[in-house]
């Protein structure tokens, strides 16, 4: 497991242990990676975070168009692995969780312990810091720094 925000580590480790999830990715709603477990390549993390953010943005817009409200989570069950994707709000803004699980877990277990993870993150989240202007150069630097932290290179 690799985390950018240290206060995320303990609840995320507990979630991994209790849910038996294989892969977890926490990102901001813009796709910036906060923590990951189970990925071995930076490229996979970047692709998954971008796709996760795009899917959540699409489903939330779909919810707005159909008046069914903002999408909380969605799941996809494949033949051997399932995927769970959920958005949640923290003082830092909206985050997205992407979880992949297999036959050692289930959608019910992932949902149950993901809800607990979100509750714990809300308690542990530091007080919001004032937003600063994001420049293109800063974005790239931060992205590279995040990937170095996540993959140790």
């Amino acid at each position: 497991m690799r985390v950018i925000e240290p206060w995320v580590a303990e609840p995320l480790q507990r979630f991994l242990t209790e849910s038996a999830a294989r892969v977890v990715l926490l990102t901001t709603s813009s796709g910036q990676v906060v923590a990951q477990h189970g990925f071995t390549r930076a490229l996979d993390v970047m692709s998954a975070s971008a796709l996760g953010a795009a899917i959540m943005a699409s489903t939330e817009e779909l919810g707005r168009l159909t008046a069914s409200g903002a999408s909380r989570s969605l799941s996809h069950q494949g033949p051997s692995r399932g995927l769970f994707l959920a958005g949640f709000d923290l003082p830092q803004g909206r985050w997205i969780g992407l979880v992949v699980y297999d036959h050692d877990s289930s959608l019910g277990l992932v949902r149950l312990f993901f809800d607990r993870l979100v509750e714990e993150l809300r308690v542990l989240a530091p007080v919001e810091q004032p937003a600063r202007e994001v420049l293109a150069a800063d974005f790239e630097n931060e992205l590279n720094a995040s990937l170095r932290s996540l993959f140790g290179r």
Partner: protein
Amino acid sequence: MKMDIVASLEAITRVRGVRGAMFVSAEEGLVVAESSMEGIDGAAVAALTAGVLARLTRATEAAGRTAPVFVHLRADGGGLMAVPAQGDLMVVAVTDPEVNVGLVRLEMRRAAEHVA
């Protein structure tokens, strides 16, 4: 069909000492239908029971035995029973400590056969 399922669950919850009963999707650990589950987190019970049953099934199969047909967890404050049903479903009951286990099991098996 939905009413039939609920009626079969109500037959279980009519047994004295049964606090709630539900049909659970065994593979996904999600509640399909429930009856009299006040004060019980049905989603949590469904997810955790499905997880326990899946592991028990794997353990018994690894031991060369068939999958369990009835599971009974006993604790100081009450009990939990599970009966696999047709396909992906299972019947789950949450009980008080003092309950007629045989009668609950009978009603759970009837409910399981009802959805077959």
